[in-house]
């Protein structure tokens, strides 16, 4: 009971902070998100505010700049931020590289990179995938050849989110062709302003640029930038991949989507002139999805329970990634059914937080199509839905 009160109080403290620091412009940037990324400027502005407050990396150990919150507090913080429409922070540095450096980095690496990452001075992107190697990371070809104190890197990385805004990139590169494909891979940190790097934006299906292809042409990187042992990058990468899979909290996303859907149904009128929320068929479909979202929520709670009890949550993470993403897609489809023709107008400029012109159609319909489009990627990146099922069959069921 005392614990409950403590958490309730914590929640109020977070809300109070958000009331004072999350500006209307930042909230707008959060509302306009149509993928896992928010507008870059707004994201970094919010990053700096949280850094000032000391809340930018709640998941990190306290000695490195974490908050010391327990799992429940972190969840509350995350939930309050999302529901208040704070822009999501970039996960590449805070969620991926940070924990990895803390685990595998040298003292010098930690000392140099972690503070710059926390303050927002460094913006990182992730160089894993390559053209020709999608889900099959082990087949990557970008090479790093040792030459005295440097590696010379040649090749190309693709699906590099926000590379156009980043000043650094962490990469998996091939440092040896011997042994199994996994064995000759190393993990290395690269400055984006090094000569020989070129960044080509990739226009997404929604018409905007989130991802890039990054080319490396004889790029020289000091050997000191290696993280972990040479040729042991696969271990580091696997750690990150699991983190990418398990670290996300689907319940909060689904709750946000659900809120939108309720709004869309309430505001749209159907054939008999009544609000669509009175339509039994749509209502029944929504209830079905909503129940599945509840099941995801309680499954995430079970995982948290297992985590805090020091148990291995096993493939429950793969399960939540699988169900959470497919359910999110089902919510998107229902949005289309609810909104009808209003989803068609493509108003890219109106999706920028700084836009202050008129928009076409109702505001609650503005992001629906872009979300429907972009969310298709959720069952592809971070291990496709098919790979998640392979993992469950193998790791849980032993098949």
């Amino acid at each position, binding site marked *: 009971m005392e614990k409950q009160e403590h958490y309730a109080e914590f929640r109020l403290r977070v809300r109070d902070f958000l009331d004072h620091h999350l500006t209307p412009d930042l909230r707008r940037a959060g509302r306009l998100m149509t993928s896992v990324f928010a507008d870059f400027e707004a994201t970094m502005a919010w990053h700096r505010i949280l850094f000032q407050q000391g809340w930018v990396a709640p998941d990190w150990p306290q000695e490195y700049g974490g908050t010391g919150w327990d799992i429940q507090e972190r969840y509350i913080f995350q939930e309050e931020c999302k529901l208040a429409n704070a822009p999501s922070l970039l996960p590449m540095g805070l969620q991926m590289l940070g924990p990895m450096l803390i685990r595998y980095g040298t003292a010098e690496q930690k000392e140099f990179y972690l503070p710059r990452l926390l303050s927002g001075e460094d913006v990182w992107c992730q160089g894993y995938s390559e053209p020709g190697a999608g889900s099959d990371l082990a087949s990557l070809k970008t090479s790093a050849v040792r030459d005295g104190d440097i590696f010379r890197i040649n090749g190309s990385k693709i699906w590099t989110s926000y590379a156009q805004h980043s000043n650094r990139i962490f990469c998996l590169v091939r440092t040896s062709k011997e042994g199994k494909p996994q064995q000759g891979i190393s993990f290395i940190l690269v400055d984006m302003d090094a000569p020989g790097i070129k960044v080509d934006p990739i226009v997404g299906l929604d018409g905007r640029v989130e991802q890039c292809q990054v080319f490396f042409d004889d790029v020289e990187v000091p050997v000191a930038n290696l993280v972990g042992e040479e040729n042991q990058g696969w271990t580091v990468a696997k750690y990150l991949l699991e983190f990418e899979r398990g670290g996300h909290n689907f319940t909060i996303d689904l709750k946000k989507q659900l809120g939108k859907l309720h709004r869309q149904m309430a505001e749209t009128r159907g054939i008999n002139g009544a609000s669509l929320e009175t339509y039994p068929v749509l209502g029944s479909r929504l209830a079905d999805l909503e*129940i*599945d979202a509840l099941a995801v929520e309680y499954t995430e*709670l079970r995982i948290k329970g297992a985590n805090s009890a020091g148990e291995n949550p096993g493939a429950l993470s793969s399960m939540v990634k699988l169900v959470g993403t497919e359910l999110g897609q089902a919510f998107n489809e229902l949005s289309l059914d609810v909104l009808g023709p209003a989803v068609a107008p493509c108003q890219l400029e109106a999706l920028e937080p700084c836009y202050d012109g008129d928009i076409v159609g109702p505001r609650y319909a503005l992001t629906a199509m872009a979300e429907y489009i972009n969310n298709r990627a959720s069952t592809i990146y971070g291990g496709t839905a098919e790979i998640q*099922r392979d993992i469950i069959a193998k790791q849980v069921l*032993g098949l």
Partner: protein
Amino acid sequence: MSIELTEEQKMLQDSAERYLKNSYDFDQRQAASRSAKGFSDERWAQFAEMGWLAMPLPEEHGGFGFGAMEIMLLAEQMGRYLVVEPFLETVVVGGGLLARGATTALAERYLPAVAEGQLQVALAHGEEGKHASMINTATTAVDEGAHCRLNGVKSVVANGDQADVFIVSARLVGAGNSAVTLFAIPADAEGVERRGYPTYDGRRACELTLRNVVVGPEAVVGGRGSAEYLLDRVALDAQLAACAEVIGGMAALVEATQDYIGQRKQFGKTLSSFQVLRHRMADMYVQLELTRSLMLAAASSLAGEEGDAARLISALKARTVKAGRFVSQNAIQLHGGIAMTDELSIGHYFKRFAVLESWFGNRDFHLQRFRELQSVA
């Protein structure tokens, strides 16, 4: 929400699992199911001895006073081992209604007997040609001052074939649906006639005819016009138990199918070497675990008498039906022809799930109720 079990609860779970695993094999289950009674008196006596039948009943009438969590744990294990004995009907529903509604005298007459395994109870509420409806009933009770006179026909009364006492819903004549009332009526009362038969899940039910059955005021369970309230409340425990039973059964099916496809060879390879079958198994597992999460949440909420318990129970039922179909149908599909026989347990889970689907409202009913309860919140 806390979904961790107490030490006591873990012990109950373990002991139930151990007992059923060691002593409740499928062949004996089938023999009991095919006997005239449809279940085993001996087993029932053992259940009583282990205290299972007393578990959720009030302490003042011979029970242990436990609640939703314990019902869930027992039902889950019973589901896993395909138990045919009428725990749901007699203890959860019958016991639950009497514990909540019976006068002290009535409770004292029946509840200790239930706890000791001496009395079978059946709720006689459903009627032919309609369903999903918790309250509208054509059976009538005419108030004749000192007593009531009941007439009507009740349909598919689960455990009705062996019940010693029926709890019958009837509408007080001239008083509308709000006056539907429950009456506890001994099976041997004059004018009570039953026609027993087996059901597809290996159990027995009956059609119950009431012809001018006269009952005194002491037979009223829960006061006049309280049937809806009482049934709604007890339905929560009953649904939890039914869903836990299905979840226990799904766990058994997932395990059995996993084993089977790991061993069975076709076209020179084990079945598990086919990716499509591995993914199907993964989906079956996912359905099971998602539903289990909801079960734990609903049980915990119900145990704490929390405000969202009814909504979570409806969510659980809607989800369990979907998951139960998927898992049991695919367990058959992956086993192939052999699972279409009476000999293997696989298909018996499938049939039990099918019968439980519409018990106290089917999936459509609970999807709708879930929405209604939500719009109130």
